[in-house]
């Protein structure tokens, strides 16, 4: 997995923050705790919830094992997202690393799939309704929607067949796929000659790069980081319990019914667009854009330096500011002006028209960056990415803290209850 010798310049922790290694550590923790959980868990609607309770009461540190699994899963989503940002903002997707960006996105999708299939298993209210909603979304995929939904649920509704399907995916298919993809991902990193050099290309002039032995220089650092992370997860799991709501009740949705935090931004999107747009079109466009990032033609492939350059930094800050201001304004505009008395959401007015307007706005933003800042292609791509990232962040924050019963907008500090 590692070459015998690595470049000294790639070693400092601040260069990568050890995010890739942290992801691997967390996945290791999850495999370990996951196997233990499988011994105690029974995948049937009648027994699932009780077996989770039994796990916490009857097994030695059963609750702790479940907590570690839960918090590792949540932390893993955060860590891989940060890893993606680190790679993007240090330009680590050019040249030989292009395909590895695609593999990384595949891993991200796999990790989200693992989380998604995992949270049905406790069979509590949150699990049941989150999965009802998500499999409900499959129904909006054109042409194959109903077939896809029937296949995911194993029947017309979320029930015992769904639980068995999700259990199988969660415990075998998804982890095996992840392990294979990870092996491929790490091999490509090694083929590319390790992580990107953190210096601008002009500074890398030495004839013989300064190499050091992987053992102990790199491995000891990685081991220390991994142990620190494991310690953190265990301490967190000792003090904070994984949530377990009331047992699933197919007759009564929880109010408000919120997705886990990493899907809340997506849920918030559902409130503002026609389902076909919010479920299918926007995610498909975003996925395509992400996949395309390494394959656009860049006149100059900058990698290594954070945010590429001074212009890169300035345009990224501008994009973030725009996203921070515009998104809440749009949410409020839709909530207060457009929605009351809107009736049926038409595909045109709650779908295509706003989508085209927003697309035009992004295009205008791109022109502004090129004209005013003289931004290069890499910097424009980065700024547009930052814009979308901040939009997603604002949507997530809105969904997590500013939505109350009935998904109405509320103040998180509870003005008037």
């Amino acid at each position, binding site marked *: 997995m590692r070459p015998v010798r690595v470049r000294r310049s790639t070693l400092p922790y601040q260069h990568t923050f050890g995010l890739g290694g942290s992801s691997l550590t967390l996945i290791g923790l999850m495999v370990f705790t996951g196997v233990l959980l499988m011994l105690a868990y029974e995948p049937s609607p009648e027994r699932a919830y009780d077996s989770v309770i039994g796990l916490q009461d009857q097994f030695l540190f059963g609750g702790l094992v479940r907590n570690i699994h839960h918090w590792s899963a949540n932390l893993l989503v955060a860590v891989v997202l940060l890893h993606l940002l680190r790679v993007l903002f240090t330009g680590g997707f050019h040249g030989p690393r292009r395909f590895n960006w695609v593999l990384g996105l595949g891993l991200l999708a796999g990790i989200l799939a693992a989380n998604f299939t995992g949270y049905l298993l406790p069979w509590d209210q949150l699990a049941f*309704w989150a999965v*009802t*909603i998500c*499999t*409900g*979304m499959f129904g909006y995929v054109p042409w194959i929607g109903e077939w896809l939904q*029937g*296949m995911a*649920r*194993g*029947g*017309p509704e979320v029930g015992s*067949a769904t639980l068995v*399907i999700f259990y199988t995916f969660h415990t075998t298919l998804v982890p095996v796929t992840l392990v294979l993809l990870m092996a491929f991902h790490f091999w490509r990193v090694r083929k590319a000659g390790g992580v990107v050099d953190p210096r601008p290309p002009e500074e890398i002039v030495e004839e013989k790069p300064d190499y050091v032995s992987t053992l102990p220089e790199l491995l000891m650092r990685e081991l220390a980081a991994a142990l620190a992370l494991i310690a953190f997860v265990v301490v967190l799991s000792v003090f904070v319990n994984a949530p377990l709501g009331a047992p699933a009740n*197919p*007759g*009564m*949705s*929880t*109010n*408000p*019914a919120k997705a886990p935090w990493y899907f809340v931004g997506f*849920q918030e999107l*559902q*409130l*503002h*667009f*026609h*389902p076909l747009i*919010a479920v299918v079109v926007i995610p498909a466009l975003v996925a395509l854009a992400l996949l395309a990032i390494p394959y656009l033609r860049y006149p100059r492939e900058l990698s290594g330096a954070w945010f590429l350059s001074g212009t890169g930094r300035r345009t990224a800050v501008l994009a973030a500011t725009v996203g921070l201001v515009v998104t809440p304004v749009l949410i409020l505009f839709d909530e207060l002006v457009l*929605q*009351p*008395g*809107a*009736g*049926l*959401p038409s595909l045109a007015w*709650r779908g295509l028209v706003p989508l085209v307007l927003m697309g035009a706005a992004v295009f205008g933003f791109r022109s502004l960056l090129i004209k005013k800042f003289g931004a290069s292609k890499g910097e424009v791509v980065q700024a547009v990415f930052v814009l979308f990232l901040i939009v997603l962040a604002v949507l997530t924050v809105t969904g997590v803290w500013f939505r109350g*019963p*009935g*998904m*109405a907008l509320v103040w998180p500090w509870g003005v008037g209850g």
Partner: protein
Amino acid sequence: MTKNREPVETSSSRRGFLGRVWLLLGGVALAEAVWIVSDFFKPRRRRATDDGADSVIVAGPVDRFQPGSVTAFPEGRFYLARLVDGGFLALHRECTHLGCTVPWVAAEDRFVCPCHASSFDITGNVLSPPAPRPLDIFPVRIENAIVKVDISRIIKRQSYASSQVVRS
């Protein structure tokens, strides 16, 4: 596959033939595997309402339901709505957006979905998005002043029409 280095024409074509046979067998094996896998994933259509025995729910005498009221029937997964003019509608309790159950909020005179804030009036019409169509309905029959609802057949509709309402 295309190593046509053999000088003799017949040998090369025999090799090509065997190659095609292998390809064909591989294709057959793949098709079988896909068939078996897809059969394992086929939705199992076992449901209490499918055998037809309990598919009709007897809601009760017409007089029991006040005009302008909504009564929940959890066992049939529907609400029986009696409109102000005395007509009946059996509304499926699942939101047409993504399938959450919609509680009736009497104070606001509407169904409000807890998942994505869709709301519906007493006839199931959409008051606020994102729900793309009115609540689904079940056929209602009134026999001898008794309201009965057939929950084996779910009716999707694009809009509310007064012909959907059953009057005694």
